[in-house]
């Protein structure tokens, strides 16, 4: 139930984490 | 005319049908009575619009009138109806295979004798066509929709918001005759339709606007609905108080209905509902949190 939504949210959070890491690397 | 239908069919009408009839009527009226520098129309009789087409979706014992289309504006004669309807039917069938012609509509205050002729002509296409009648005279004191649905006995399903009339066979003076019988109906809307009806009714802005504008529009809609609910409850409350004082006679059926309604509250109190409700709540908070983090990432990226 709601598996599509949760997998989409999971994808969003994963990509957000990856983006933040990339931005952090740019700062450093 | 018999008083009410006993067919047992349920009729549901979508607002689109009502507004299409209104549109058709207004166009015919404006052509027959051109506006004169904003002056009100004269007292000449309003034109009668007859439209021999309605597209409906059938589903078991329920019929939904979701759309209507015009075929002829001048009163169709019984002989012209079947051919024009067949043409429309074939077009509609290609586009909406689940829809079929359920009946026809007209404007006026009462069903007339001549309507029966057209109704019988349509029985070639549909065994029990539905006849929807809209009263175009504007009366601001009325609260109910000025629409009536008449149905026929063979096909007692009709979901038109208008008055439904059922056609029943009666023997009058030894001759079997068909007469119109009114049927009750309900207004049905899908979510998108409801939003657009609300939009047109209150002429809300369709462009994005700011978040504050969107929030205001959303809350205004809910506020209006709650206000309606509140006014209905007040009316009931005053009525019950009057009954209690003895000002009006006691109506046991109403008391039973009110009692049953009150006993249904709280509406949902199960653990499953609480779980689902809290899950939706937390999902929304999670999405808000992720959006905030995305915004923060944007700010940091811009800073970098």
């Amino acid at each position: 139930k709601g598996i599509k939504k949760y997998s989409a949210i999971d994808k969003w959070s994963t990509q957000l984490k990856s983006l933040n890491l990339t931005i952090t690397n740019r700062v450093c | 005319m018999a008083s009410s239908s006993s067919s047992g069919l349920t009729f549901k009408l979508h607002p689109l049908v009502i507004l299409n009839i209104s549109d058709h009527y207004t166009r015919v009226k404006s052509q027959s009575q051109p506006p004169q520098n904003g002056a009100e129309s004269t007292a000449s009789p309003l034109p009668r619009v007859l439209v021999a087409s309605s597209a409906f979706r059938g589903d078991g014992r329920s019929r939904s009138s979701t759309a209507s289309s015009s075929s002829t504006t001048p009163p169709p004669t019984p002989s012209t109806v079947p051919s024009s309807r067949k043409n429309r039917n074939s077009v509609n069938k290609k586009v909406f295979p689940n829809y079929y012609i359920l009946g026809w509509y007209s404007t006026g205050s009462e069903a007339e004798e001549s309507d029966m002729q057209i109704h019988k002509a349509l029985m070639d296409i549909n065994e029990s066509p539905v006849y929807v009648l809209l009263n175009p005279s504007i009366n601001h004191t009325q609260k109910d929709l000025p629409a009536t649905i008449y149905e026929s006995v063979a096909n007692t399903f009709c979901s038109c918001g208008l008055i439904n009339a059922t056609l029943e066979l009666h023997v009058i003076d030894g001759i079997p005759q068909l007469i119109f019988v009114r049927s009750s109906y309900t207004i049905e809307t899908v979510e998108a339709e409801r939003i657009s009806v609300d939009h047109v009714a209150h002429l809300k802005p369709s462009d994005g606007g700011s978040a504050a504008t969107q929030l205001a529009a959303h809350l205004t809609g809910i506020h209006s609905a709650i206000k309606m609910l509140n006014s209905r409850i007040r009316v009931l409350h005053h009525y019950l108080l009057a009954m209690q004082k003895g000002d009006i006679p006691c109506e046991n059926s109403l008391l039973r209905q009110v009692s049953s309604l009150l006993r249904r509250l709280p509406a949902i109190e199960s653990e499953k509902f609480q779980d689902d409700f809290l899950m939706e709540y937390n999902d929304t908070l999670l999405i808000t949190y992720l959006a905030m983090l995305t915004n923060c990432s944007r700010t940091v990226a811009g800073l970098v």
Partner: protein
Amino acid sequence: SESDAIFHYDEAAQANNVLLDSTRCSDSTAEKVSSLAITLRNVTFECLRSWRHGGLDLLGGNVSKVKNDSSDMGLAEFLSDEEGGQVGRLENVVGWYHSHPGYGCWLSGIDVSTQMLNQQFQEPFLAVVIDPTRTVSAGKVEIGAFRTYPEGYKPPDEPVSEYQTIPLNKIEDFGVHCKQYYSLDITYFKSSLDCHLLDLLWNKYWVNTLSSSPLLGNKDYVAGQISDLAEKLEQAENQLAHSRFGPLIAPPQRKKEEESQIAKITKDSAKITVEQVHGLMSQVIKDTLFNSVRQ
């Protein structure tokens, strides 16, 4: 009354309309055509009624000719139908409308070529696009009216009117053709009978307003939006990652592009959040209204 006067078909005035638009030159004539008031009611309802089929119809001519899911050259035959006159609709065909379920109000490549072709042969003519899925999700009608510029015309740079979310799989089609058309202001009109009936209809459908659940009704669409957002984030992140030494050597324009991409993603996420929060508000209000009563 004045509101009903607009329904009166005046042949001379219609002829003037055509003349006015055929004399327009290649610059934007939005102010000339924005006075074409369209009946939102019919457009909205017809599109929303047929949204699962990607409905398509004519404006101002034939009332209910609908064709499934197509805006190709077959439309040219479709538009020449004369049935409008037979049903007593005296007005000329002034445009066409179709729906973009879930992907916003804009003109795709096919839509642009269809509109351009029709504008060559009949004027005034406009294209209306409606998005019933976003209508339900946002709680307001998503509609746009457009006209194309003449072929080969380069419009002056104008500020973007209003940002709208475009799914990743449609973004190329959107971007290639977005300069070939311009949007029109939409004004609405209602007859006196319409106003009266709409007031009476409110007495019936206010229940639906209170009972609607935007959170529950559009779950697939929301999941699709979030998934699309995640993909856009991935794209932005890849772009940033490839410009590892970005802060040092990237040209200013590229930096601006990267920033605007993330800014757009942020706007998309804000839009999703706002819609979810509105839905949650409705649920909380209903819970308070109906579940906090105690015997």
